[in-house]
């Protein structure tokens, strides 16, 4: 393996490791008898339901919008306008389905963007191969 590839792989493994949530109970795909209803309820909590969680005092900021963020907002609205998805599907995909690591780890419109890509694949408007090819093609434009 070339050393710069090795460096990239190691960096990737390192970042992935750092992004693992810290759990305070052992988890090993337990037997049904090992999960009581209180735990079941806790596991059913969705990661976007943050109201009431403690957090630190912060300085409140305004934010300049990236062009891709505005474009993402508009793309998501156009997909709705033309009937590709409805509000319930959008919310499920942008908030619930991501899991805690991505939900809290990605920028706000980054979540929107992933959900737009996924709805197009899941509803078979595009294939994953088409998406990957398009991503490669777009990347080349910037080289």
């Amino acid at each position, binding site marked *: 393996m070339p050393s710069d590839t090795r460096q990239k792989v190691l960096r990737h493994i390192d970042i992935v490791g750092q992004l693992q949530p810290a759990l305070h109970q052992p988890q090993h795909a337990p037997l049904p008898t090992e999960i009581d209803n209180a735990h079941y309820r806790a596991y059913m909590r969705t990661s976007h339901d943050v109201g009431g969680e403690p957090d630190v005092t*912060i300085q*409140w900021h305004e*934010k300049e919008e990236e062009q*891709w963020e505005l*474009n993402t907002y508009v793309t998501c*609205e*156009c997909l709705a306008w033309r009937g590709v998805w409805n509000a319930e599907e959008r919310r499920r995909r942008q908030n619930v389905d991501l899991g805690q690591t991505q939900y809290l780890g990605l920028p706000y419109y980054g979540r929107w963007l*992933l959900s737009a890509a996924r709805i197009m694949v899941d509803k078979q408007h595009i294939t994953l191969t088409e*998406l990957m090819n398009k991503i490669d093609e777009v990347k080349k434009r910037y080289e």
Partner: protein
Amino acid sequence: MADKHKPAPMVDEVSDFEVLEVAVRELAIEKGLFSAEDHRRFAEFAHSIGPLPAARLVAKSWLDPEFKKLALEDGFTASKEVGIDWLNPTGFGTPSDYCDLRVLENTPSVHHVVVCTLCSCYPRPILGHSPEWYRTPNYRRRLVRWPRQVLSEFGLQIPSDVEVRVEDSNQKCRFMVMPMRPEGTEDWSEDQLAEIVTRDCMLGVALPHPDRKADDKRPVHKAANPVHGH
């Protein structure tokens, strides 16, 4: 000084978000899910919205008790008088999934503030795009539990004998605050009044004042490639 301690931007190349955004948009257009013209028109709408219609709704209410009654009882109908049709906010048909606007009246004994704990629901047609801080997990986490502390970080101290009521938005129902008309604005016109009803006043994190025509300055996170025209 503060800038020195800021981390260097992690993005030093075209970001994967930018690439994915172009890819998704172009594929959607190529597949006919929407047209390039649709995207352009909606972007135009997105640029056109802001807090002015809501400010006008408040100013009108301060001047006209009948309109105020309507605004508090039926925000949907009152919005039409300031040019906002919740069923069709763009004027060319859109996915509006929220058609219930509730206007929350502040009184000498109750102060309202708005949040969306589950996501970031916001009355965009009448108030424009939500500020970044409104979308942060931090604001959503703490406001429902420690509202007075959070408000004080916005520079707003609510006296202990005033009740603070936090309204949690949801997909179908959006909120805006109708602040109390401040002293020193007697004989003002609707235009003059609308000027002091800023976005933050209608979210409940600030109060209108005769000398305050813009929201408090806060630090701004700069964009790497900001929206054209900003």
